[in-house]
């Protein structure tokens, strides 16, 4: 359609969501100004903006964000480091797969939140119980995804590897691992999203910092403006994490898994 003015895709990507955001903001503002919400149930956009300003000025919002990201970084990274090697073995070794798969599925189906009582009893308060919850939230997902991907690597690669003289762990790390990386990156993208959701829940119980704690603390003080401020921050960081992980798909040696 050469006659019509078309908006470039790159502009659309920012423009369209911004328009939706502004629309929602306008409706929210209008409804609030018209007195449609019972007093104290929904804060006005202005209150939320003021809450943002004071939280940023005091540095608390930044501190809480860093606290949450710190826990996610630890829980997620340690879980991935443990889960990928185990997933490779489970995926490639039939007996191990038969023995462990039902149990991995069992634990994966348990909400990480269900571990909170144990987390507190085993690790006390502070960062360790929250990191433990995040470890659980990531570990079983990633083991399962790695194992499923490793089990479906085309057999021809192993034939070729055999002729090239690769043996034992060299096969695992030079054939199986690169062959599953695109699927693994997708699994990590899902897992980081889950971990970020779970950190907020974990912080509502066992710690006195972080974005989850900020929300619980604000609710206790009936500061709904602060609750919304926390929610917006959590959602925004969730988007940023997702974008960062989706960028991994651009690594040249992974492109083959996404271009087909």
């Amino acid at each position, binding site marked *: 359609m050469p006659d019509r003015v078309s908006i470039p895709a790159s502009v659309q990507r920012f423009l369209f969501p911004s328009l939706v955001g502004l629309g929602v903001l306008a409706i929210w503002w209008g409804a609030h100004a018209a007195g449609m919400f019972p007093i104290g149930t929904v804060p006005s956009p202005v209150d939320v903006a003021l809450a943002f300003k004071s939280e940023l000025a005091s540095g608390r919002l930044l501190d809480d964000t860093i606290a949450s990201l710190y826990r996610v970084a630890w829980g997620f990274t340690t879980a991935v480091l443990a889960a990928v090697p185990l997933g490779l073995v489970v995926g490639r070794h039939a007996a191990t797969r038969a023995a462990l798969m039902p149990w991995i599925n069992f634990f994966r189906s348990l909400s990480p939140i269900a571990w909170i009582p144990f987390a507190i009893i085993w690790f006390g308060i502070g960062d360790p119980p929250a990191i433990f919850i995040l470890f659980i939230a990531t570990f079983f997902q990633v083991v399962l995804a790695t194992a499923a991907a490793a089990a479906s690597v*085309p057999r*021809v*690669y192993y*034939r*070729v590897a*055999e*002729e*090239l*003289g690769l043996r034992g762990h060299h096969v695992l790390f030079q*054939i199986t691992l*690169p*062959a599953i*990386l695109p699927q693994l990156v997708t699994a990590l993208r899902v897992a980081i999203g889950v971990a970020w959701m779970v950190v907020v829940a974990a912080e509502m119980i066992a710690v006195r910092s972080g974005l989850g704690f900020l929300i619980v603390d604000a609710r206790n003080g009936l500061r709904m403006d602060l609750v919304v401020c926390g929610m917006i921050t959590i959602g925004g960081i969730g988007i940023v994490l997702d974008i960062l992980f989706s960028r991994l798909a651009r690594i*040249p*040696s*992974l*492109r*083959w*898994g996404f*271009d*087909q």
Partner: protein
Amino acid sequence: MSGSVLELKGVGFDYGPLSVIDSLDLTVAKNELVVCVGPSGCGKSTLLSLLGGHLAPMRGTIDRRGQSRTIYQAGGLFPWLTVRQNIARGLPEQLAGHARTTKVGEWLEIMRLADFGDHYPHQLSGGMRQRVEIARALAAETDILLMDEPFSALDYQSRNRMRRELVATLVERPRAVVFVTHDIEEAVQIADRVVVLGTRPANVRRVLELPPGRSRSPATPGVAEAEQAIMDELGMS
């Protein structure tokens, strides 16, 4: 036979109760191009697995002198490596740093892939991918090359061109080739010898010697007759 690189005597292989290969005798001489044709499901791929040492025969003996490399129908390249890296993978291990780079460069030239060294396999056409596969397998400098319907995924023109290129490359760097195909025309065009396999369990039904000179056209004397003889043997005429 003194000059043989592969010698099979009374080889048999079963999958459970199903006998796929039985009492198969086959000798492949040094630098000979043997093409095996047979109906689909006759155990051609099993035969290649036996020849490559991926499977052990249940009966009989396989005497293999030297190492082998296999070229597969499609998708044998590592998609996470560039063309250059894939070919380098094939090189003998003892070849050191600089010599490796030079060798890979040579193979890229031979296979007319010089501009595509840093491309990944998924960015290439089917014919180019198959050339990379051939380069990787030949780069190993092994004595035996096994080819499992290597051109069957290509279109007609690429297939014809690849046959000619394979024959030309083998003139420069000769080695024994066992080429498996269901394409009779392909068999009679490039083979020194065509081995016709029977239906399951596969054994040698007939061996045809082709006139010297690979890369024959359908008009080359003896080609049409050979083609007819194979079709007769397979009950296709």
